[in-house]
């Protein structure tokens, strides 16, 4: 049984249909990447898994159990944590408080503690009492990833973690992924940076206007296939 599965996942924003029957699977320990152009429905897909928007209950399954109708606060307790697009750290909380609140709802024992996050991102320890708006974009992204890890999630959902960052910073952020995977955490990456996504993902799903346009393992996919799936033809 897959760890996480979406079956015919459909999502709406009011009357606007953002996702059309998406089928995906995520096995334990696996990393999948969701790629696609702006507005393809990638972030919507993550929000639907994280419980911020709701489809049918059985359109999202965790260990085979339907979780599609559960509120976001329950989903994190089940072991699914989202690193939201644009970081969205809490401005009233300093860096350490932002990390601590990541473990507010789910107090699961696991490898991720304050010390462990600081070991992975030493700059956060230096800036632990800083107000988060004073952090650089890369530091903010590290804090957002650390915050999500503090719940010791079984599945980490990452929404555009390279957005707006310099290439050298992106490399730093992505260097953390192997450490996260080594702890047995499964990862769902939403990325516009296809090259980066293909490097780390075991499998890739390409979305186009709310529909799944291509699935496969990175090494099996050709440039032309991806180009067509990305932009349409």
């Amino acid at each position, binding site marked *: 049984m897959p760890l996480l599965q979406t079956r015919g996942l459909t999502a709406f924003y009011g009357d606007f249909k953002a996702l059309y029957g998406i089928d995906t699977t995520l096995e334990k320990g696996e990393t999948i990447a969701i790629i696609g152009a702006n507005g393809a429905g990638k972030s919507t897909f993550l929000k639907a898994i*994280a419980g*911020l928007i709701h489809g049918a209950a059985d359109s999202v399954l965790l260990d085979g159990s339907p979780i599609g109708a559960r509120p*976001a606060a329950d989903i994190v307790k089940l072991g699914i944590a989202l690193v939201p697009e644009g970081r969205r750290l*809490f401005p*009233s909380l300093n860096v350490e408080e932002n990390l601590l609140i990541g473990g*507010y709802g789910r107090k699961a024992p696991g490898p991720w503690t304050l010390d462990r996050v600081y070991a992975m991102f030493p700059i956060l320890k230096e800036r632990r009492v800083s*107000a988060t708006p004073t952090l650089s974009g890369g530091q903010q992204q590290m804090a957002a990833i650390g915050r999500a890890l503090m719940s010791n999630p079984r599945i980490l959902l990452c929404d555009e973690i390279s957005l707006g960052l310099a290439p050298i910073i992106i490399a730093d952020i992505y260097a953390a992924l192997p450490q996260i995977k080594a702890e047995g955490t499964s990862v769902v990456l939403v990325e516009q940076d296809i090259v980066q996504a293909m490097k780390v993902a075991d499998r890739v799903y390409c979305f186009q206007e709310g529909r799944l346009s291509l699935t496969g393992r990175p090494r099996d996919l050709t440039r032309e296939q991806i180009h067509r799936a990305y932009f349409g033809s």
Partner: protein
Amino acid sequence: MTGWLDALIQGVLLGGLYALFAAGLSLMFGVMRLVNLAHGDLIVLAAFAILFIASKLGLDPFVAVLVAIPILFVIGFALQHVLLNRALGRDLLPPLLVTFGLSIIIQNGLLQVFSADSQRLRSGAIETSSIQLGGGIAVGVVPLLTLLSAIAVIVLLNLIFYRTPIGRAFRATSDDLEVAQLMGVDIRRIFAVAMGLAFVVITIAALYLGLRANFDPTIGPARLLYAFEAVIIGGLGSFWGTLAGGIVLGLAQTIGARIDPEWQILAGHLAFLVVLVLRPRGLFPRAQD
């Protein structure tokens, strides 16, 4: 000269009462962005609750308030969970209408149950006792206790907000409702806890309201106005600001009264307007909003 010094001291002490009125309002606005138009009536309701407990159980108001606090916490929690959570949302109007309605319901409910008679909490000799400071200046024990209680409430609220996990959850929820849920914060529950806490503060404010002056079911809205002014003067979202706001208001009123007794209330409102003109975000606004 002594008269002016006395006015300053009494003003600061009166400010303690206004800070207590305002602290609950500040908490509600800070956590859930709720503008509670029933706040003054809730203070009066709590004063009647203390009166009822004190007279039925034959307790001193200072003891009765300890009985009232857990009861009012539960009432606040339930009020938020059952009613106000449904009114809160993107639109600012529903909570205003609901709390306005609540204000009318509480006033009329209290009139039905307790009649329009003026009431007072009685605590024996402490009500009239005072401490001589020398030079002809004395401070009343109850006004002094009011200010000390206000400071204690502000210190405790700051400890809760800045030193505990639930305080982090309060601040995170206030910052970003959606992402707070991603942290496992149950918004409806956290709002209900915040309202319960606000009701504890309301109950403490009610004790001093009832000890210092007469109250009846209709005086709530005027207390609401003072509480609002104190919160706005201090700056939204800062508890110490709220204390400062209460003291500014109290000082303005006693200084106004010193010039001419008829100017007491007006002077408070004028001070409020002056602060609004000079510092529209209050004396101690939050860094980011």
